């Protein structure tokens, strides 16, 4: 039950994100150091991405680590702190009130990340066999903690300057610790467990995952250590290349599991994952473009492909591959074999997930087209589609979370 609030709150933040995007449609292709864009990015990264991922991770950690979660109270506390911290941060960025509110928000987010890291590490540590998925889970948690600490220091630095480096360069380190450390490594670890499980596929090339783990971490550590002491220059794209190779190794593993799958028909929800990985590849291609081309819209496109493409697509798909099972298990795990109970897939609307997939594709393509052409009217049309998408998602998540226990003959259980 502890994980349901993460999904519900994540869905609400996604809806808020869609509405805020619409409100600032004209600013989306401008410079990224803009109060509204900072508020949007933190709503997307913390309220949407991290919120849902925390919920899913607390459910999946026991599967990956083959033991119970280390601490449920820690998970609950991390929810409260992440929610309050995100609200304070997003608000203080939106109105650009640099000071106590922003620092308190940042501190709450750091506390949530610390609790998550302790929970993840302690759950993984007590297992006798090592596994690359567990290593990804722990390394991603550590990167989340590092990212949030850098973010908090940057928030303090806005108020009292003490970091002897260019703030915008520091912002790049903060953002990429989050993207290549937290999101990339978490998704790498979880997907290599879930995708083969859902497709009934397997790959014997597990060494690729160790290569991925090493390269993703090596590239990021090199970038952060060089970037802290030196100005961010084009040579640092080499480090992005190392991370890209690590990402490539992970994707080859997934492609191998896909080729060797028993389930030939790929469900629609799994197609979200394919779109997500394609957006990540485009993100890597856009990185040098964003660096070398002065036009700010390429940086915005880079962020769009990562946050609204890669991270959003995987969450939209995986929500309905995890949440219904969690709710079903809460209601029916003691009733199986006693009475007829519905199947997990009957807890949400499959039809809405079909609409969700196609509205998402349309919304994303229109948004990218609007940003490439710098056409605000097209961006606004796209963002209306994003609001419709968020509404579809929220309705389906709510339908699942608030499912009333029913037997198949329609009688309510006690």
């Amino acid at each position, binding site marked *: 039950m502890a994980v349901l609030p993460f999904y519900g709150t994540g869905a609400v933040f996604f809806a808020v994100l869609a509405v805020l995007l619409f409100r600032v449609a004209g600013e989306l292709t401008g410079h990224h150091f803009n109060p509204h864009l900072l508020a949007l990015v933190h709503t997307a990264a913390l309220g949407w991405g991290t919120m849902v991922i925390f919920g899913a991770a607390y*459910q999946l950690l*026991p*599967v*990956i*680590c*083959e*033991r119970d979660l280390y601490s449920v109270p820690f998970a609950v506390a991390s929810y409260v702190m992440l929610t309050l911290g995100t609200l304070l941060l997003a608000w203080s960025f939106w109105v650009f009130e640099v000071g106590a509110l922003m620092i308190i928000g940042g501190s709450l987010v750091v506390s949530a990340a610390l609790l998550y890291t302790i929970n993840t590490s302690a759950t993984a540590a007590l297992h006798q066999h090592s596994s690359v998925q567990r290593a990804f889970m722990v390394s991603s948690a550590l990167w989340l903690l590092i990212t949030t600490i850098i973010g908090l220091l940057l928030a303090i630095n806005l108020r009292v300057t003490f970091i002897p480096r260019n703030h915008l360069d520091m912002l790049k380190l903060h953002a990429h610790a989050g993207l290549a450390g937290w999101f990339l490594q978490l998704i790498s670890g979880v997907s290599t467990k879930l995708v083969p*499980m859902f497709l*009934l596929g*397997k790959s014997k090339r597990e060494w690729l995952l160790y290569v991925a783990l090493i390269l993703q971490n090596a590239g990021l550590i090199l970038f952060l250590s060089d970037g802290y002491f030196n100005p961010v220059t084009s040579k640092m794209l080499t480090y992005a290349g190392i991370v890209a190779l690590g990402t490539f190794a992970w994707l080859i593993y997934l492609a191998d599991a896909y080729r060797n799958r*028993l*389930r*030939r*028909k790929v469900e629609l929800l799994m197609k979200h994952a394919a779109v997500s990985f394609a957006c990540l590849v485009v993100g890597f291609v856009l990185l040098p473009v964003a660096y070398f081309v002065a036009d700010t819209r390429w940086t915005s496109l880079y962020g769009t492909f990562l946050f609204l493409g890669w991270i959003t697509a995987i969450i939209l798909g995986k929500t309905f591959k995890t949440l219904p*099972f*969690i709710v*079903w*298990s809460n209601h*029916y*795990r*003691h*009733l*199986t*074999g*006693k009475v007829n109970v519905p*199947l*997990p*897939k009957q807890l949400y609307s499959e039809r809405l997930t079909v609409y969700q997939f196609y509205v998402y594709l349309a919304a994303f393509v229109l948004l990218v087209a609007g940003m490439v052409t710098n056409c605000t009217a097209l961006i606004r049309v796209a963002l209306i589609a994003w609001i419709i998408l968020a509404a579809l998602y929220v309705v389906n998540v709510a339908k699942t979370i608030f499912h009333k226990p029913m037997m198949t003959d329609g009688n309510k259980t006690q």
Partner: protein
Amino acid sequence: MEIKLNDPFAAELLKAQTALMQVIDPELYVNIIDLGLVYGVDFSDAARVKVTMTLSTPGCPMGEAITNGVENILGVVFPKREIEVEVVWEPRWNYHMITDAGKAQMGLE
């Protein structure tokens, strides 16, 4: 789960197998017999039924629902016996343990 006709408990085993076919893996939508999750059912102790089974993956979030289902359904079929479910990890379950009927239900090749 194989049943030999010369097994002294063949009738009980058949009843157990039929009952266990009503326990569905909520993730794969196939019954646990056709999934090959049940390794054996032991009736040698007159007071109980011991089921030796596995799950598709250790730490499976649906594991408790499945083992509860086994206990519940066998408790109905054999009300005078105590039901014991032992989950084992050797041999490790793999896709080749799914019966042809199970593969057909899952739309596998």
